[in-house]
């Protein structure tokens, strides 16, 4: 293992290798190359010896495990559920808070309590996040006039400087046109063009420049033929594939299939 940076090598007589101009005579026996290899190893020995000394002064891992735990538990995480014990009642209150204020008159007094402008106030359980009804905290956005207590409902007011994205409609199941019918998503969120941009379907299938006799081996779009591979070095995940023909020296069509 290498030692921390800034340390000096334990082999001062050997300067670190650096690019040199070609030798005046041919290196027939690979002497220069062998020397460089030895230099690299001797530097490595120096680093390792230094690291051995450094390790002596390290604290045991428990100290750093504690740091990890302390960091993680101190930070909130929007992907993590809260304590299951409270969840049922929280869901209920959240459901109520998300109900439209005026569409369901029997619930409106409960829902509006989430918002200070409403005339009736009821103390909510702690799990009910009042910001749900006015997530943008926008003075021009009156959730009592919203069709739904959804972050999207802040959109129409236009003057929000929201800290959350203006159209936070994760519940809207785009793509395709069904998304636009979902009432909880504003029209801005699911405007008609949101799902309509389609890619052209493989315009270069003709492969005019391809001299490869196996053009059809890769796929209908034949990416082999779009690609020249003068300096090809195949990545490690060169996999076997059903394609037995070799378009290129390293058979790139097999790399990704």
């Amino acid at each position, binding site marked *: 293992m290498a030692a921390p940076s800034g340390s000096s090598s334990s082999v001062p007589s050997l300067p670190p290798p650096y690019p040199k101009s070609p030798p005046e005579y041919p290196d027939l026996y690979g002497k220069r190359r062998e020397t460089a290899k*030895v230099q690299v190893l001797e530097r490595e020995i120096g680093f390792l010896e230094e690291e*051995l000394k450094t390790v002596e002064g390290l604290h045991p891992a428990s100290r750093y495990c504690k740091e990890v735990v302390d960091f993680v538990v101190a930070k909130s995480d929007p992907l993590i559920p809260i304590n299951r014990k409270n969840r049922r009642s929280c869901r209920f209150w959240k459901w109520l808070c998300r109900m439209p204020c005026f569409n369901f008159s029997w619930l409106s007094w409960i829902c509006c309590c989430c918002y200070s402008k409403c005339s009736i106030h009821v103390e909510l359980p702690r799990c009910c996040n009042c910001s749900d009804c006015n997530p943008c905290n926008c003075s021009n956005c009156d959730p009592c006039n919203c069709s739904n207590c959804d972050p999207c409902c802040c959109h129409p007011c236009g003057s929000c400087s929201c800290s959350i994205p203006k159209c936070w409609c994760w519940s809207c199941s785009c793509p395709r046109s069904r998304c636009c019918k979902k009432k909880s998503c504003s029209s801005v969120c699911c405007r008609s063009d949101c799902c309509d941009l389609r890619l052209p379907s493989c315009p270069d299938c003709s492969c005019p420049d391809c001299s490869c006799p196996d053009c059809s081996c890769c796929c209908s779009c034949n990416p082999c033929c779009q690609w020249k591979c003068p300096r090809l070095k195949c990545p490690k995940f060169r996999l076997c594939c059903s394609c037995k023909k070799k378009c290129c020296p390293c058979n790139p069509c097999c790399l990704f299939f």
Partner: protein
Amino acid sequence: MSVSELKERHAAAIETVNNLRERLKQKRQQLLDVDVAGYARSQGRTPVSFGPTDLVCCRTLQGHTGKVYSLDWTSERNRIVSASQDGRLIVWNALTSQKTHAIKLPCAWVMTCAFSPSGQSVACGGLDSVCSIFNLNSPTDKDGNLPVSRMLSGHKGYVSCCQYVPDEDTHLITSSGDQTCVLWDITTGLRTSVFGGEFQSGHTADVLSVSISGSNSRMFVSGSCDSTARLWDTRVASRAVHTFHGHEGDVNTVKFFPDGNRFGTGSDDGTCRLFDIRTGHQLQVYYQQHDENEIPHVTSIAFSISGRLLFAGYSNGHCYVWDTLLAKVVLNLGSLHNSHENRISCLGLSADGSALCTGSWDTNLKIWAFGGHRRVL
């Protein structure tokens, strides 16, 4: 000195290096008095518990016609760039599923892509050994294609991974099959620093992944087929600050932990690991028992914003959600309703940590978000 003497010296040096490494390993082992899971259990921590609807797929981004290999979120706005075997980059609005750009690449064999911090540019690289930069605001050419605004040439092997330096649209780090990482100045198109190489103290096999620290953008880690991860300081290119041993297979993916003092790795040995960058300690191994002959490789990882969850994609199509504190699998995204129909090849968290995006060989990307009750602090 004769060639034969040099060879003897070389052999002796290799033996010394191996002995020193073994001593170092033993000393480190003595310092591992507990792992994170052991410590967390001793503190009475219990695993995160997910209900069936807590983490749900709320978007499917359809448009690629080939396997998706890489994705990246913008740092501020909710956009995603994805790279696919179909030879295109697509820029998505993750909230609306709208495609804002579909960029046809000069080289279809793309392996990686990244969004610039400002969201104005995207970068990609692959088997052509070049990292190409596209300015999303550039006018398209007569064929409707976005032109390459800068080509970063210099690698002698495929470009396996690229990431912009945080807060700098002008600097980017790539990793490559030529065993090096390179810090690029995009303005000039030149290499600022090369990390590793044939006669440098660096990786000794293909480098597959890089991750730059969010808290100190001078530091980055790389993972390699030499079974190690290395920590680098961009000011000191000649050697790695630390080399992290432990994996028994290629290190396919590396990602910094949110606190910046640790990072995670995923490997062909089927494990994910958590390393401490200051000490080199391996703090935890995340491993799910499998049949000995069918150990799935870890292909991609991402941490949730608190670090409590580790998302790991495997070569067998599973995508485990690990509780990092208890080292338990708490969910398998691959088995959920509406999940991908093929291997999850890449994944990433949105900047605010509220959504996970997964890319798959089934040509789709999916956005996952919390569908249950949110934590209210």
